[in-house]
């Protein structure tokens, strides 16, 4: 049976070629490529980023079926953006009315703006999904530590990540305990649920306090000091296991260069803008027809 690595959003085969790449490079990809849509207005280029991410997911042997959960999210987000730009976008006599529904005008400019915003947000989400689908908590820590982020900061970050799971688990325990004693807000009104929510929050809060107390004991009992120990050069055994190779340096360089290329193309030559976008031209011919 194929051995799998549990990542933050799922499972990836241990043999995935992505694990040959240093975690820092993967973090760099997230941080840099998720910035691209901020500089790219042309929707087709942004959809190109999505295709690139999908290709990397396939290469990384991530089961693409797991991405199905994001389809309703993407659709509802698209509908919401469209509605806020059109129905809730206000009246603009200066804009071109593409069509009317129940005499309500839908402006061409607002539709283009909605498509622009949607096409920028979607690739950012895809890049984040790629990173979280292929990274373990440990990879994130290694990436930050390799970037010389102080151990105490990465450690606190790791604890924050871990505490999310613990709070969810504790919440489930509290809820079951309350249910076992006849407290079940299922089927009750939202107002009732909100009023009774305190029944969950108080024990959850008490549990969180106890856990933090236990945690403090645990790290003190194993000699950890947040300010570092006097005269002790702390080895980072886990980081030591990851080697930053030439390939990683090349990939990092490519990522940086691609950012520079995007910036130069956008602000130096005026490419990647809405003006020369094929998607906008298509929308124009669909919604404006021959009208000017």
């Amino acid at each position: 049976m194929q051995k799998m690595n549990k990542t933050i959003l799922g499972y990836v085969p241990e043999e995935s070629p992505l694990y040959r790449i240093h975690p820092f490079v993967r973090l760099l990809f997230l941080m840099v490529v998720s910035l691209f849509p901020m500089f790219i207005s042309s929707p087709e280029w942004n959809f190109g980023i999505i295709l690139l991410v999908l290709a990397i997911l396939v290469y990384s042997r991530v089961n693409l079926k797991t991405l199905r959960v994001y389809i309703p999210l993407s659709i509802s987000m698209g509908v919401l953006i469209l509605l806020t730009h059109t129905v809730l976008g206000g009246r603009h006599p200066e804009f071109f009315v593409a069509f009317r529904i129940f005499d309500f005008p839908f402006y061409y400019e607002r539709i283009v703006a909605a498509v622009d915003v949607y096409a920028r947000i979607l690739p950012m989400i895809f890049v984040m999904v790629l990173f979280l689908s292929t990274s373990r908590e440990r990879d994130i820590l290694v990436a930050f530590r390799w970037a010389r982020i102080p151990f105490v900061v990465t450690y606190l970050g790791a604890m924050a990540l871990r505490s999310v799971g613990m709070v969810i688990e504790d919440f489930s325990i509290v809820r079951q305990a309350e249910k076992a004693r006849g407290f079940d807000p299922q089927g009750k009104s939202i107002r009732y649920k909100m009023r009774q929510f305190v029944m969950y929050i108080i024990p959850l809060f008490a549990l969180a306090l106890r856990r933090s107390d236990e945690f403090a004991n645990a790290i003190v009992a194993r000699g950890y000091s947040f300010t570092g120990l006097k005269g002790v050069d702390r080895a980072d055994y886990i980081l030591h296991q990851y080697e930053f190779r030439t390939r990683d340096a090349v990939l990092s360089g490519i990522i940086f260069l691609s950012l520079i290329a995007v910036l130069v193309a956008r602000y130096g030559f005026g490419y990647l803008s809405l003006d020369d976008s094929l998607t906008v031209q298509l929308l124009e011919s669909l919604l404006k027809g021959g009208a000017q």
Partner: protein
Amino acid sequence: MTTAVRFENYSWRYSRTKEQALKEINLEIEEGLLVGVIGPNGSGKTTLAYSMNGLIPNQYNGIRKGSVKIYDEEVTEMDQAQLCQQVGLVFSDPEAQFTAMTVEDEVVFGMENMGLTYQEIEERLDWVVPLTDIEELMEKPPYEVSGGQKQRVALASVLSMRPPVLMLDEPTSMLDPIGRRRIFDVLGRLKREYQSTIIIVEHSLENLIPLADLMVLVYEGEVLLVDETEPFFQKLDYLMEHHIYPPGVLEFFHHLKKSGDYPEASALPESVGEGEKQLRRLLENKA
């Protein structure tokens, strides 16, 4: 013999409580012994454990009197990092002591804090991982393995620091019988092969008795009885008066003794196997 741990007139009262958690404790534990500390819940066993490794008074507020010495050095005069290398503490809830994202990170955490080199860490991993049988778990998150495995990971993470004194606070309280047995197997190996000083606060007497050299009864904050294991459990009436309920085999022979069916001078058997032999002998003699 060297004294590993020494309590001298030691008392501790937590702030905002009226009663002292520990009262005038005097106790000496020699190096290389496996010591069982027993007593009902709330009797002060955990306070005793925390006092040895400095969590009391460093992490808790309260009033402290007397002294606790580890290898003749007063606990309050050592800094916490130094103390952790002298007394390793395994908590009753293993999950409460996990601080890392994978078992491997968890086991190396203490060693990194000690400032060991990569090579030393690797050497100790090679020793502790097979000892505690956690090879298969190294890549997993520690909070996602089974209860018994969690406790073995917790034990490995403390053992890897190689403290001369190992203190375990109810290490099997959350485990099933198989999990308990495996923890005691590891402790047995530590005792036999490494002559470690091990102090175990434990309710599971059937596993503890065959291993323990010395037993300590703590009751309402006082150390009432300290003795070698065999004579300790001969005072069964006294122990039962203080809510210590021994394994069935001990209690059975104790009843036989009281009813005159078992010789007064004979020692009570400490295990089922030993009990079986005694019973056969008894029946043969009767016949």
